[in-house]
């Protein structure tokens, strides 16, 4: 830049101008800034010396409002990290994002992984990048001490919890009970154990189009499966925050913790003896369901002057090279691409292995049923928190949720 200022304009060749293309990337992953800056970005800049990448994240809980304001005032970054559903759908509606249709690399992804960033017609607006999953971490040392085996069915799961409880030395299962963190009971609770009962994505679609109700047996069973944890949770559960729950497990005071793959580094630090298992099934031999949540993708700001370079970068995000680098440097975040990758982190690999032989599914309710008031997410998280901290049963919780949907969601309205 400084050199070009000293040289007469006529001497600047086109390549020198191209050398100054700077792409800014906005993100809510402030924790990962160092990894982007030191590892991921240099890989790309080395192969594309004409591009300079700047990773400029904002804190996660400010990201949504900050980004929509910056989009409105045309000061947003060239590349923005896309949240699944919510904010991204609003940005698409207001034409702030460039469609990524036909971009090479997009064929590496399933339709499933594109739907959280597509408009009503199915046109994709973000390149899917990373997914996360939910499941159970277990302390192998405690399992060995109490001679327990990893449970596969709901009955085995309750049996294991019962044995740990009887022994009395450890909290059998930690989850999040504090209402401020009640998102966890949804994503790391209902959406973890539920898909098996409501048959994955089909169950979500059936609710979306009003063919089934939340009070139907398959959804009630999901609520009841979550409610079955109640006797095994830590004391004073209603005050256990998400980080309290993690601490209890890390300190070895709890045998099993329900958490996300994104916590691999904290929950299974090097030298620990921690394993992972997925949601239990009701009948032995049934195929398990594994939740894969599209966590982030990247989209192009429609107002960015460098559309061509931005598209090139998005294509790189779809490659195996980037996927491999992401999976190894951010353990617990998995590339959404269909390409097979291997991961150095043992526990992160165990998370990925959960998907083998399982039916992959996305959380339900997050799209259409979140567009009105009161939205699915607020109602569900609140109800799950009440259900897990009081005597409310799964059936009652499901009935309340259905009542709330009937109050505004057209396909579910009483005819």
């Amino acid at each position: 830049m400084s050199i070009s200022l000293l040289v007469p304009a006529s001497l600047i060749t086109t390549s020198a101008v191209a050398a100054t293309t700077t792409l800014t990337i906005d993100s809510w992953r402030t924790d990962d800034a160092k990894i982007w800056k030191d590892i991921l970005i240099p890989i790309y800049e080395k192969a594309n010396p004409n591009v300079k990448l700047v990773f400029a994240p904002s804190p996660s809980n400010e990201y949504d409002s900050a980004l929509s304001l910056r989009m409105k005032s045309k000061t947003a970054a060239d590349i923005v990290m896309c949240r699944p559903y919510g904010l991204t759908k609003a940005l698409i509606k207001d034409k702030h994002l460039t469609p990524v249709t036909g971009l090479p690399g997009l064929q590496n992804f399933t339709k499933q992984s594109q739907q959280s960033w597509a408009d009503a017609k199915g046109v994709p607006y973000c390149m899917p990048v990373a997914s996360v999953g939910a499941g159970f971490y277990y302390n192998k040392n405690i399992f060995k001490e109490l001679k327990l085996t990893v449970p596969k069915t709901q009955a085995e799961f309750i049996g294991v919890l019962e044995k740990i409880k009887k022994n009395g030395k450890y909290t059998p299962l930690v989850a999040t009970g504090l209402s401020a963190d009640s998102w966890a009971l949804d994503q790391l609770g209902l959406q973890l154990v539920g898909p098996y009962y409501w048959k994955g994505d089909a169950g979500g679609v059936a609710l979306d189009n009003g063919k089934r109700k939340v009070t139907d047996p398959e959804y009630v069973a999901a609520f009841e499966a979550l409610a079955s944890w109640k006797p095994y949770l830590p004391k004073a559960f209603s005050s256990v925050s998400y980080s309290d729950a993690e601490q209890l497990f890390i300190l070895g005071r709890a045998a099993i913790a329900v958490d996300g793959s994104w916590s691999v580094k904290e929950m299974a630090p090097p030298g620990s003896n921690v394993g992972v298992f997925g949601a239990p099934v009701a009948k032995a031999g049934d195929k398990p369901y594994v939740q894969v949540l599209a966590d982030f993708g990247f989209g192009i700001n429609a107002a960015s002057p460098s559309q061509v370079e931005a598209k090139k970068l998005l294509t790189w995000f779809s490659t195996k090279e980037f996927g491999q680098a992401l999976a190894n440097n951010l353990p617990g975040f998995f590339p959404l691409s269909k390409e097979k990758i291997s991961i150095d982190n043992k526990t992160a690999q165990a998370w990925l292995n959960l998907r083998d032989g399982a039916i992959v599914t996305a959380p339900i309710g997050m799209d259409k049923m979140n567009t009105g008031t009161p939205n699915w997410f607020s109602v569900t998280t609140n109800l799950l928190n009440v259900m897990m901290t009081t005597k409310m049963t799964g059936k009652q919780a499901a009935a309340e949720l259905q009542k709330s949907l009937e109050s505004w969601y057209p396909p579910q309205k009483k005819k």
Partner: protein
Amino acid sequence: MRRRRRQLLLFTAPALAFFLLFAVFPLLSTIYISFYQEDVFVGLQNFVFLFTNDEASERLIYAFLHNCQFFLIAASIQLPTALCMAALLTSGRVRRMTSFYRTLLFIPTTLSVVIVGFIWRLIISPLWGIVDYPLLGEPATALPTITLMSVWQYMGIPMVFLYSALIAIPSNIIEAAQVDGASDLRIFFRIKIPLIAPQIGIITILTFIWTFNGFDIIYALNGGMPGPDYATDVLGTLFYRTFFGWGADLGNQNLGAATATVIFFIILLGTTVYFATVQRRLKASQL
């Protein structure tokens, strides 16, 4: 005379401009946008929705009741305690280090709300702290607990108010009473309290305004959907959630402005009623 008026205007102009720009203008523009919905004039529709929609009106009423509870607990604990502290500091019974105690009692006020919330949450945590009961997790105790944290933090402000009012009482009155043989308790109730009555009134109304604008400690502890089951939801958090959104909710600026307008009128009404009925009679006893 005319010149004097011009001078007055000149000297108040900066403060007036500041006040108009940062208090009056935002207030009026809030009321203005509360009549719109996505840039279309809708009249009172936002307000009708707030008061008649089942979900919205329930939240609004509960938030209002929680604010009343917040105010009643705060006023009934903060004021007497602050008065006792100020009385003790000015009584002459604390012979040494009066300013040390005064500073000590004022320190929590200078702390960040986030720190206060964090420290108290750890202290009362059943897992790591000293209380074996989920105070913040039970709907019945959650709001009183948060109120007490806030009372603890802001105790210093009414204390300093009352302290300065108490030391302003001329010592000859007290001495005269002592010569007449009045006990300390009698002096306190019959002489000091009547003389600082207007300050007590002002503190009450300030507590009313603070608690009805209350937001920060609840948001710091419980986020934008303050549970359990909305048990700690106040007007401030309701406004935040409506205006900025929370979780999957992206927020609605016009509805949020309507909520803010409702809060403004609640506070305006409360303050007016108070000044019209109580404060006018709370004249300091004539010396």
